[in-house]
């Protein structure tokens, strides 16, 4: 799964939903792979308004990518910044989490990722 996916997921445990610590899930022992995807500037510009930037900054740092600026760029800034475009493209659209775990910051539950597929099914005592 692409790294961008982490911006749209949170812990599956019901009692975690109200906690801000259940998002984003934290990658652990992540093995990353990279896909070749052509850069689509329009896509990146139209992603900006819907991305939780703080969560993305956390994810980016935790995966060992260069730290993102504190504030998201505006559409105009992004369009004029070839390096920022390339960096975001690499992080969001090309990088995939292939193996590892996703950990909830609230309950500590670890979701396994195998062959690019995360497993969010819960053992019966957590449902």
């Amino acid at each position, binding site marked *: *799964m*692409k790294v*961008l*996916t982490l*911006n*749209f*997921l*949170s*812990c*599956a445990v*019901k009692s975690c*939903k109200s906690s801000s610590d259940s*998002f984003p899930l934290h990658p652990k022992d992540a093995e990353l792979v990279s896909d070749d*995807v*052509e850069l*689509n500037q*329009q*896509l990146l*510009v*139209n*992603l*900006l*308004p*819907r991305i939780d930037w703080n969560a993305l900054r956390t994810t980016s740092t935790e995966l060992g990518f260069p730290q993102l600026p504190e504030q998201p760029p505006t559409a105009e800034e992004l369009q004029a910044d070839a390096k920022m475009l390339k960096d975001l493209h690499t992080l969001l*659209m090309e990088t*995939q989490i292939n193996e590892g775990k996703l950990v909830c910051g609230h309950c500590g539950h670890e*979701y*396994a990722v*195998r*062959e*690019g*597929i*995360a*497993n*969010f*099914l*819960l*053992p019966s005592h957590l*449902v």
Partner: protein
Amino acid sequence: MLSTPSTSHVPYERVYEPAEDSFLLLDTLSSSSETAFLSQRFPSTPAQGPSSPAPLILEIGIGSGVVLAFLTAHAQALFARRDILTLGIDINRFACVATAQTVAKARPQSGSSGAGYFLGTAQGDLTSAVRPGQVDVLVFNPPYVPTAELPSLPPRLLGGDTDDKVTREKKTTYKEDSTLLALSYAGGRDGMEITERLIAALPDILSNRGVAYLLLCAQNKPDEVKGRIRGMKGGGPWRAETVGTSGKQAGWEKLQIVRIWRE
């Protein structure tokens, strides 16, 4: 006519094979009324003002992946934009693996210029792992057949370390395979037990501009279901309209697609 993704690689002994319901979803989502609705709901061309944010498409119960691959491969034709993100969730890990392949095979066929962006698939229970308020288009072809009981996932296939071995070596038993297929069609009382859970999650899961496409069969009592949706809390008013049908029997529609959205 948009091409139907190939699913020849899918192990149908444990993953739902595309059938009349899957094809009704393809036909409905590519009908001129739905493509018009979707491109208006998620405008992207400068003439309509600034682009709306890139839509997130989520399919629950992907099975072979034929619907998700269709939406991904034909993004431009269906949404009048290609900056769409697609994500699939299924309780059956084999369906997650199969769908990734189905999307990969379908994407180049249509020429990369018109295709959207596939985020991946995840194993999960409906939308339990989805962050609230994010989904712009939700598609669900549920287990809708009325059954006396609801099957539960064989423990070996739930996850944990054995899951890895079982799924990698594809050493499922005949009984486990039967249960995986039952999970794809068995809907319990009125065939609605799983669908009711999904409907209850909609106010939370859908974005303000979100739209859900839900498949129902006649035994699900679709008019009552639509009535209940129209009375839902959580933003709104909620709308629920039938936008596609198939399999007319004595004046009854056997299957229908209901579009659900907030006005």
